[in-house]
Every structure is written in C-alpha cells, then in structure tokens.
C-alpha cells in the first residue's frame, strides 16, 4: 500500500535518469543520434525497437561501457559523468546485459562480490554477501543457491545472479537488455514478478526489448527507437501494440517494385511441422508448415528473433531440425551427414544467408574465390586431379560480376573491400547464376545502400520470373510487402497466418508480428496480464 503512495509522490520528483542529446557512432554507423529520455523513479520504462535500432548501445552508454560522443546524463536530477562501469555502479545504476557478464567457474557468491569486496581478504565479504543474498532472495523471489557454480545453473538462474549482483551493489536503477530472449515462458513470468517486486520497492527499471507483449504487460511508459533515433515516448496505458509496431517499423514510403503478376507452377518446397531447439535448449521453431511454388516469392515477415533465422539455417542445411521438408516432392535429410550445405545445393537449393559477412563470404578471400565458395568441387573448375583452374574461375567471376553490376568489377579484390551492397551482389551472383530450383534469401538488403537495393530486388524477381521458387525472409516490412506474392508472418516460432500482399497492410502484419491474431479481442494479452496479476499478489504482500 505505501508502495503506491511513493510511486505517486515521485512522479513530481526529478527523473531517476535523464539523457540529453546522446550521440554515438561506431565508425560510419551512427548507433545513437541525439537521444533524449526521461525515466521517472519507481516506474518500469520500456525501450522498444528492432534489432540494431541502437537500444543496447544507449544503455551501454548509461552503464559506462561505451563513451558517448556527445550528450549529458543526469541521475536523480544531478548531472553525472559516467566514464566507466565503476562510476555507473556508484551512481546506483545496475545492468543486466543480454550476454551475461558472469565468471562461469565461480560460485554465485564469488560473482556477486567481484569488484565490491570488503578488504583484501575474502572471508568477511563472502559472509556478508551470503547474508544479503538470503535477504534479497526472500524479498524479491530471487532464489538461487549461493554456492552453486554458474556453469551449472540454468539461464534463468544465471539471470537472477545478474540481478542479485546489481542489487548487492545497491542499484536503484536496473537496466535489463533483452532479458527474456533466452528464457522459457515460465522463467519470463517469474522475471516479471521480480520486476514488479522491485518496482514496489521504489526501484526504477529500464526494460529493453523488441517484444511488444512484454512492453504492454509490464511497463508504465515506453520509448520507441528506430535507426539510432528515439521516435516517441508514450504512456503504455494510452498506446497500443499496433501503434508501437508502426513506430518501430517506420512509416516510410513503400519501395514499389515493378513486378509482373506471378505465374505459380508446381510446388517446389513443402515444409511440414518443423521443430528446432537451439543450443541453449530454447524452442525456436514450434511446428512450422508452409509451401512455396515455382515462380513465386513467399515472404516471411516477423520481428527479428522469432525463429526466421533458424528456419533459413535449417533449409540451408546448417542446422538440424525435426519435421519434414520436401523439395520437388522428395524428402531431404534434416539430420545426419546428408544434412549440410553441399547436399542442399545438390538438391537445387541455393542460400543467400542473413549474415553475409559471417556465413556468405570469407571476408579475406578475393571476389573470385568467394564466387565459387560451396561450388568449388564443380568439375568445370578443375584443371586436373590436383589443381583448380583459377584462370577460368577468374574469367567467369569477372563476367558474372559484370552481369550483377558489382562495383568495382574486379575479381582480385578481397571481399572486405567491397561495400555492403556489392558484397551482397557477389553472394547473389554466386547463388543465382547456378539457377537453383529454390532460392533462400535472408535480409537481402540489410546494410545495403539505396542504390543497390533496387538491383538486388530485380535480380530476385528475375529469378522468380524464370520459374524458380523463392523464400524471402526479411524484417523490413516494406520489402516483404513489395516483393512477396504471398506473405507468412512468423512469431515466436510459429506461423501466425498467411496473407496476400494486396489484401493486407502494414498494420495488420504488424499485429501478426506481435503475435496478435484477433484485432478485436487480443486473447494472449489478457491471459498474460491475468497471470502476472495473479502472480504479483503474494510478492507484494510482505510490504503491505
């Protein structure tokens, strides 16, 4: 009960955090541009935005992990310089990074005291931390065995250790960066209960996420970031997921692509009940089914991190899965030694991966060497049993670089010396020139300059008009809308629905991308909120 009073009272007080005109660039990339933000004490403030919008950078600046190029930080109304993490800790700021900063072979206790030990001997510090941990565990439902080694703990427990670390350092402001990305739903619910408990104690929480449901469920206010800029700050109660989705994705003019109606033919790709669990044991695909016909583009829309990357990797043969995939009516292996990139290519599947620099190219290799990656065993490239016909490969590469308008069209230049767009054209040239039955394309225009986008889109459309099947995965909604002949929306490892581009709009797709299938009465929200309310009850009781 007094919790509510203090929260009210503090609304008029100085903001817990205030950022003024923060800018930060990494080389040519402007990660944050003139960002201002106020977060009131005793509230949960959400920051949403797509991957790469600059959310994590902003919070890392606040935690002293990066240094801002320009701007000021005020903590509790006081102008504060945060040159390093020590200063942030002193200012009462704690941060739970997306990738935990824990020493794996240390115990929970050792991790908690690291950096804030009392004196040169550990004994007293460990004893003190043990007591504090016990108290914090009871207070906030942060139970974790203080003597357990981090490497033996589940991800959810490791996250609790990070929160405990911050609280042990007397943090009043807690920043959580994509905290639920690695959690199971039950763990996520528990986390939200913890956050509610913390808020009731008067702590200020900044929650960075790209999941709109979490924002709607737990935050008081929300800020939207897009491409390094803060585009809006709203009261959560007065906004809606649709509005946030619009703000996140942006309302730019559609890049209209000049395309003929599709002439779909036979079904090329059939995917049935595909399941994928990643290395951390998190289910990434939970029964995905769809098909792609020859001569059409199926676009997969979705907020990054909802399983589309895993889908591409499974189809491309770089990740194992369960379920069924047929290409031209024939099953392909999803596990074992016949499930790799080479055997996929042999079945007529070409793959333009999402991360072209890591999966699509060897950056130190020259363009002509990159042009045959994965096809190097082709007899056409062999001079004899031992030597490859490099001269022929170079000539062929130069010709296909011309056709794909790679600039400069110099096959002897290393891949890293090309711009993002031209790197992408090299990958596309390599995959499309083999005239595959099925082309998988992930984020074809991510990090690509405007000039190259049109050419890349046209190349993909040409392949479609040549009667090939294309699966396009993109987080850019306009790209999906303009390129696709059919659109499937993926959310949390499931296909939420399929739409025709002419019969849908960004708004409807945005809702589907947020996991809302019924605009009238979004059921998922209510269930989650109800669950949270029910769960928050006992947590609040000790303070009442």
């Amino acid at each position, binding site marked *: 009960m007094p919790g509510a009073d203090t929260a009210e009272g503090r609304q008029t007080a100085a903001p817990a955090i205030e950022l003024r005109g923060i800018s930060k660039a990494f080389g040519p990339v402007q990660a944050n541009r003139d960002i201002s933000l106020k977060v009131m004490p005793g509230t949960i403030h959400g920051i949403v935005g797509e991957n790469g919008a600059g959310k*994590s950078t902003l919070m*890392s600046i606040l*935690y002293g*992990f*990066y240094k801002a190029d320009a701007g000021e930080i005020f903590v509790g109304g006081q102008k504060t310089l945060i040159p*390093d*993490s*020590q*200063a*942030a*800790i002193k200012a009462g700021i704690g*941060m739970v*990074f*997306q*990738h935990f*900063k*824990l*020493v*794996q*072979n*240390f115990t929970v206790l*050792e*991790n908690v*005291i*690291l*950096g*804030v*030990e009392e*004196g*040169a*001997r*550990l*004994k007293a*510090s460990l004893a003190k931390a043990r007591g504090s941990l016990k108290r914090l565990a009871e207070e906030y439902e942060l139970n974790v065995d203080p003597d357990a080694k981090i490497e033996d703990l589940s991800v959810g427990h490791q996250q609790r250790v990070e929160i405990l*670390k911050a609280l042990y350092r007397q943090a009043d402001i807690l920043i959580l960066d994509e905290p639920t990305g690695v959690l199971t739903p039950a763990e996520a619910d528990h986390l939200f209960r913890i956050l509610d408990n913390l808020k009731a104690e008067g702590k200020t929480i900044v929650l960075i996420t790209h999941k709109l449901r979490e924002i709607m469920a737990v935050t008081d206010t929300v800020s939207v970031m897009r491409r390094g800029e803060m585009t809006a700050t709203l009261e959560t109660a007065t906004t809606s997921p649709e509005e946030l989705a619009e703000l996140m994705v942006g309302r730019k003019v559609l890049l209209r692509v000049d395309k003929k109606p599709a002439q779909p033919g036979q079904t090329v790709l059939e995917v049935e009940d595909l399941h994928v669990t990643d290395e951390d044991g998190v289910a990434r695909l939970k029964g995905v089914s769809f098909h792609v016909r020859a001569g059409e583009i199926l676009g997969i829309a979705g907020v990054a991190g909802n399983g589309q990357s895993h889908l591409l990797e499974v189809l491309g043969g770089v990740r194992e899965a369960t379920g069924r995939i047929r290409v031209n009516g024939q099953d392909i292996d999803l596990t074992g030694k016949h499930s790799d990139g080479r055997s996929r290519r042999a079945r007529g599947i070409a793959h333009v991966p999402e991360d072209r620099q890591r999966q699509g190219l060897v950056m130190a290799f020259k363009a002509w060497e990159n042009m045959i990656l994965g096809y190097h065993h082709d007899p056409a490239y062999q001079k004899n049993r031992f030597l490859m016909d490099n001269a022929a490969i170079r000539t062929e590469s130069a010709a296909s670089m011309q056709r794909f308008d790679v600039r400069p069209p110099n096959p002897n230049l290393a891949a890293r010396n090309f711009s993002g767009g031209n790197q992408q054209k090299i990958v596309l040239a390599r995959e499309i020139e083999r005239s595959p039955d099925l082309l998988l394309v992930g984020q074809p225009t991510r990090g690509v300059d405007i000039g190259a986008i049109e050419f890349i889109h046209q190349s993909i459309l040409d392949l479609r008009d040549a009667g090939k099947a294309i699966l396009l995965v993109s987080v850019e909604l306009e790209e999906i809308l303009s390129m696709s002949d059919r659109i499937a929306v993926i959310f949390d490892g499931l296909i939420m629905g399929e739409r025709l581009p002419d019969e849908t709009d960004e708004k409807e797709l945005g809702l589907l991308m947020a996991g809302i299938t019924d605009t009238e009465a979004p059921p998922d929200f209510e269930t989650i909120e109800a669950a949270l309310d029910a769960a928050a009850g006992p947590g609040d009781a000790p303070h009442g």
Partner: protein
Amino acid sequence: MDFATVLQVLDSTVRLATPLLLACLAGLFSERSGIFDIGLEGKMLFAAFFSAAIAAVTGSVWLGLLAGIASSMALAGIHGLASITFRGNQLISGVAINFLAAGLTVVIAQDWFQQGGRTPSLLGGARFGPLTLPFAETLRDVPVFGPIYHDLISGHTILVYVAFAMVPLTWWVLYRSRFGLRLRAVGDAPEAVDTAGVSVIRMRFTAVAICGVLCGVAGAYLATALQAGFVKDMTAGRGYIALAALIFSKWRPWYALSATLLFGLLQAVALRYQNIEMGGFVLPVQVMDALPYILTVVILAGFVGRAIPPRAGGSPYVKEQ
C-alpha cells in the same frame, strides 16, 4: 640403493625443482590473468645473466638478485605492453622475448667480461650459500629423521625456501584474497571484471609484473645459487618445462609443486645415474637427459587428462557485446 643415496637424489631433486617451481608459479600468475607467457625462458635467462653480472661486479649477491628481478621485470613489461596495451599476439611476443634474451645475454656478457659469453665465476658473498637450519647438527644422529632433516631439509640456499614458501602463499592469494578472486576472474571472464568496475588492464599488468618478479628470482637462483656464474643458454629449456608443468598442474599451485618436483626428480636421476644398466642393456645418459623433455612432450600431447586453461587466455580484452 641405500638410504643415503635416496636422500642425495631427493636433495638434488629439491635444488633442481626450485627454478622450475618459481618459473611455474610465475607462469601461473600470468596465465591466470589471461596472458599466456611462453617467454618464461627468456626472462629467466635475462635474470640469470644480470644477477650474475651484477653480483660479480659488486660482490653482493643481493644486489645481483635485485638486478635479476629488475631485468626480468623489464622483459615482462615489454610482454605486457605488447599483449595488453597493444593487444598483440601473446605467443609471438613471448617468442620474441626468448630470442632477445638468448642473444642479448651472450653479446653483453662478451662485451662486458670477455670470457666467451660467460660471467666470471662467483665466489663468497657474490653467491647464495647454504643455510643451516636450527638444530640440524644436533639432530643429525637421530635415526631416519636426523638425516632427512640435516641432508634434505636443511642446507639449501634461501631462495629454495622462498620458492617452497611461495606455494602456500600463492594458494592463499589465489583462493582467499580479493586480488586472487579478481585475478582468476580476469583470466576467465574479463568482461565480468570490466562490468564490475575493475580495470582489466591494471589487473593483467599486475599479474605480468608478479610473473616478472618470480622469473627474476628463478633466473638469479640458477646463476647465483645452483651454479656460480652465468653461461650461455644456462636455462636449458627450463622455462618450457615450467610451462609444461603449469599445464600438468592445471594452473593450480599445489599441483604445480608436485609437477615441478617430478621434473626435478627426473633431472636429478639423470644427473646421478649417467648410464643405467637394465639387464645387460645399457640405457645411455642421453636417454636420461632427454627424459624430462620427453615427459614434457607426452604431457603437452594431452596424456594427463583434460587441462582447461583460463577461458580468456591468449586473447586481448576488447569491449564488445
């Protein structure tokens, strides 16, 4: 083999294990902080030369020891600068230090003393003498314990006792002190140390400096205690054996003691039994001499089970997410 012989071999084991132990603990501090140090050999050699040279010139072994430590720390500083500040390759930096030390010591020695790359033989106060522990003489005739105390435990130079005392001290620092906690953390997860508000750079430089001090003592021991003066390449691969012992011991101080004693024993046996007869077949001395190195290869080949090095070892710390 009688009791006296066993004692003599063990006594020799202790003497020969001492430089290995010091170098091994030096490597332990450095590598626990995440800085691989293949340059133990070079630092020891440098310290051996400078301690012998200064001891020869001044007649004071203590000044020699200080000079040895200082010279070893100078090389450690170069390694730190290259691998921490400039984020260079730690192996290359270490190898460079070994080459530098091997060449410079001989060149300077020749220019300075003109004795073919040696220092003059050290006499009297220019060399560490044996210490006789209390009651060693009185207890000498007590059966079993007397000889052990008199012949094995007593009668070493001060540096031997320092080396053995370093083992529990290192253990305590590593597992019971704030510095040790941070040291272990910085070698395993520097990003955790950084976000906890502790300087990764400072931690690593401190560790490398400690490594320099211990290597300095090890080198000084070789030239001013074990032997009487510096000769070319007198470390004879001890730095590498210490590295093998470090892996063998899985970067733990008490295991380091056992590992270096084992290597010391092998060297002692090789020294004592030049040719060993095994049922009409003579094992030549070269085989015994090679034994520590063969064991090193076997250990490095991974016959001792999985040794997990500090996770962040060998890689410079760069902030990223």
